């Protein structure tokens, strides 16, 4: 308020100051505006465009003959989409559960005041620093029956050993789970470890005096108080699962056949290589709906939590 009150009285000097004030006030907005405009256009604009395209019968190139929700009907009748959607449920479910269990166990073991904890923590966390493409390539070599684990064990003399999940169309989806869990469980461990460190030592002492064994202390007292951490971890892992694309491309390429297709690879294949832009857009919108179905309740509970807290 005070600049407004004082400026008429002080005259020219005050006006100059208020000009500087105006610049100061608008400069942040001015600086942020371009990136905001770009973000609006390229994120939300293209989202909208994708939705519009999903209502057309576009093929190689976008065009605007509207066909209503026909592309969605085609999508759900599509055998390959159903495989991709089922794969997502299998992959996502196993990926999230395995990451949580492995991450929690690693965190609990690391929390026992062991030696060299810092070094171990870095080792477990390191896969997160790799690109999923690198992870995919490394595991493709490891799981390749002629090059990797199977060949190694056979060279030790176990001639009958078979580990060919990568080329088995029923099992290939599980190789994705292995690689993704390897990549992400260290990160989940770090989340849990931070949560465990926040727990007062005297809670363990009190529970020990109450006669609870260590597993029971974790089950009854520690885990319930880690619920917010579990929640965050599930959210992060779930959207990694839905968006999974690079790992599939590097590890299996969606194969054998389309056995390891996920919605993201389905969308890419139809939109950019098979000239089915309309169908691809419809699948993209379905993925968006999947992410929103997870994010909206999450954000809602987060914001409500902040208001309460």
């Amino acid at each position: 308020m005070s600049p407004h009150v004082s400026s008429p009285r002080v005259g020219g000097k005050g006006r100059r100051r208020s000009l500087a004030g105006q610049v100061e006030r608008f400069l942040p907005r001015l600086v942020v505006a371009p990136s905001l405009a770009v973000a609006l256009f390229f994120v939300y604009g293209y989202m909208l465009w994708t939705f519009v395209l999903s209502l057309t019968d576009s093929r190689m190139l976008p065009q605007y003959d509207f066909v209503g929700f026909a592309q969605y009907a085609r999508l759900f009748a599509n055998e390959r989409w159903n495989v991709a959607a089922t794969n997502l449920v299998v992959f996502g479910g196993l990926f999230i559960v395995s990451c949580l269990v492995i991450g929690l166990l690693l965190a609990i073991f690391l929390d026992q005041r062991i030696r060299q904890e810092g070094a171990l923590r870095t080792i477990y966390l390191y896969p997160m620093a790799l690109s999923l493409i690198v992870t995919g390539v490394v595991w493709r070599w490891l799981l390749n029956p002629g090059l990797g684990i199977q060949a190694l064990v056979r060279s030790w003399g176990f001639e009958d050993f078979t580990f060919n999940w990568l080329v088995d169309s029923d099992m290939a989806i599980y190789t994705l789970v292995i690689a993704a869990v390897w990549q992400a469980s260290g990160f989940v461990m770090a989340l849990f470890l931070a949560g465990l460190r926040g727990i007062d030592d005297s809670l363990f002492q009190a529970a020990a005096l109450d006669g609870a064994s260590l597993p029971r202390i974790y089950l009854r007292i520690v885990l319930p108080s880690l619920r917010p951490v579990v929640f965050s971890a599930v959210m992060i892992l779930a959207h990694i699962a839905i968006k999974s694309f690079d790992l599939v491309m590097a590890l299996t390429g969606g194969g054998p056949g389309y056995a390891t297709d996920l919605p993201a690879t389905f969308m890419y294949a139809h939109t950019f290589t098979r000239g089915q832009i309309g169908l691809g857009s419809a699948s993209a919108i379905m993925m968006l709906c999947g992410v929103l179905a997870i994010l909206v309740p999450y954000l809602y509970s987060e914001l409500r939590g902040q208001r309460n807290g």
Partner: protein
Amino acid sequence: MSALNIRHVDKTFGSTQVLKDISLSIDSGEFLILVGPSGCGKSTLMNAIAGLEPVTSGEIQIGGEDVTWHTPAERDIAMVFQSYALYPSMNVRQNIAFGLEMRKMPKAQREEAVARVAELLQITPLLDRKPSQLSGGQRQRVAMGRALAREPQIYLFDEPLSNLDAKLRVEMRTEIKKLHQRLGTTIVYVTHDQIEAMTLADRIAVMRDGEILQLGTPDEVYNDPVDMFVAGFMGSPSMNFIPVTLVSGGDGYVLRVLDGDDPTGAPLELPWPAERDAQALQARVGERLILGLRPEHFVEDETRMETSFDGTRLEVMATVVEPTGADILLQATLGETEATMRLGPKSRVAAGERVALRVDMSRAVLFEATSQRRVA
């Protein structure tokens, strides 16, 4: 019967010895307070009693049974923690019942115990709340309730009041005392607050550097301290330590207050009461000693309230006057040192004035200057 018996307990962390040959025993129903400055080993001793930390050597008996190597759960004890350590995901009822559940008590009995404890501590309306919804004082009650529900042989309290604000601390202190009187429980209580120690304890163990310096009733520890550390630690404002020389004069002994600044002036002399142990003093004539006088051992000379008070007169220069409401604390130079004296609230003393006082030498204590041990 002794509820807790500790024999020659040592505890070392690496090369530092935190408990040095601790031996003590308390009777059933007794309230023992371990008091001392931080780092004196009082919490370590409590953890050793609880079994949370193994001892290096020695023996701990609870109810006559050797529990030195028992787990915390196998010892019949309950503990109230400084941070309360309430289980955050459970409500108050579950918190109180958890220890009973772990000990396989049937559900009906468990509920009965929770109801009894909640009634006792007046937390019945809070039973369905989570710890995060409680205030500090309420959490304190729940933590005590959790201990009481188990009805163990010994209760351990680890600085339970130090997280509360001053007013609540006094209230809870009274509450704990009432509870102890009503239930006759055996309590070991750790604190660094000497007022808590004085008000609550049946017996006080004053600790320093891993040793028990003195174990006695509050009255013994306060009025009959074994050395200058105990004397200075108990009591607030703390005891005045005045360097003196013991001289033999006339029909008894006289303490000449040393005055470094003014050796020419007539030294202040305080006669040692004839009825107190002259034997111990005989060998120490001419020696430098430390005279210990508590602030309340001084009385203003005009006071007519205690007509029988027959102390030694002296005159001092008031340097600082601090009225606390209930009484007035007076700082004055006494020989080489600044001494604190507690005067009645009606006193009209002002800083810079000379004040006539009487001092009650029959309650004075004397220490050796070098070893700080008590002489008389």
